[in-house]
């Protein structure tokens, strides 16, 4: 067998460049292993004991850095819009084989369970690891299961679109209400007693925002998944 191939100069230069960068970074990092310094996260943990919820990561994502989450929602929204724009003329694959009986029935059986799990992860995001993004992706994976196992399943576009619009508007409106009531955009204007930490209804707007985020992410990911599964006639 002939193992010797022509390795182009592009490969050599790519290898050299990457190795140079990585070795520089490693060199610098290994010389300066950071001692345990006081970072902003520790102060946020202390603040979380008064203002946040049981899951500190959720309170950071939704409340302390909620504006980044709003931006991330905007990114997903624009990406779903772009994918819909690019792949809008494709249709579902006409030559796809019919799935077997077991696959069809089993996936229809599994779908409500996956949905329920997704909704659970979304709603309990402030008490256990999870949250809007995670729950939304779980819901989208349920939709994906149905899309690839059942030929005739189509995500109902109008419903999903309406859900997505409603969720997006409500996130910005929650922020604006915070601005009007508390003079801080995305301020926590619902009651959030420290004594309630660990209960389902704690943390003020945090579970509300995360549910809104979950609905939006779930609907957008379902739309993206459906668009990417389409095929054009010639491809």
């Amino acid at each position: 067998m002939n193992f010797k191939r022509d390795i182009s100069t592009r490969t050599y230069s790519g290898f050299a460049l990457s190795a140079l960068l990585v070795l520089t970074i490693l060199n610098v990092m290994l010389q300066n292993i950071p001692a345990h310094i006081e970072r902003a996260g520790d102060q946020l943990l202390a603040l979380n004991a008064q203002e946040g919820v049981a899951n500190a990561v959720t309170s950071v994502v939704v409340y302390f850095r909620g504006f980044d989450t709003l931006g991330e929602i905007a990114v997903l929204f624009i990406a779903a819009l772009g994918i819909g724009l690019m792949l809008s003329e494709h249709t579902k694959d006409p030559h796809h084989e019919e799935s077997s009986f077991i696959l069809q029935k089993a996936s229809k059986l599994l779908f409500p369970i996956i949905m329920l799990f997704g909704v659970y992860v979304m709603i309990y995001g402030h008490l256990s690891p999870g949250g809007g993004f995670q729950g939304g992706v779980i819901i989208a994976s349920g939709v994906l299961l149905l899309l690839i196992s059942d030929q005739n399943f189509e995500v109902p576009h109008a419903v999903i679109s309406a859900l997505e619009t409603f969720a997006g508007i409500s996130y910005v409106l929650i922020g604006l209400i915070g601005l009007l009531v508390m003079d801080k955009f995305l301020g926590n204007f619902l009651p959030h007693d420290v004594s309630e930490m660990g209960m389902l209804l704690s943390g003020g707007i945090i579970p509300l925002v995360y549910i809104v985020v979950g609905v939006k992410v779930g609907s957008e990911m379902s739309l993206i998944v459906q668009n990417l599964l389409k095929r054009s006639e010639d491809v």
Partner: protein
Amino acid sequence: MFETFISYLNQDATIQAMVDIGSMALFFIGLFGLLTHRHILRIFISVSIMEFAIFLFFIGNTFDKTFTAPILGDGHVAFVAMNDPIPHALVLTAIVIGMAVFALGVSFAIEYYKLTGRTDINDMNEMSES
């Protein structure tokens, strides 16, 4: 002998070094792939690998193994001796953003392939050469 090896591995400095070297090796794979591959989808995958290497590097370097996860439960009732929640939040956001850009890029590539049948970036020269 074995115990001293394990205790050597358990030192903070060794763990830091392993995290750094491991994530940078992954970053190297991604960067090498980005610079040498010609198929557009492989370029996207390489960038994705680079991004995940950075997330690994980030969380690994802000991690203290004597502390626990920043969430109440399993008997914890106070927010003390917990790891930093900010890197987790940042990586959550960055993962979603990276995935969104990747999906968009794939859709561009699909549409381009449908219109011209090309996926090799050296063949993408619709524009007049400068």
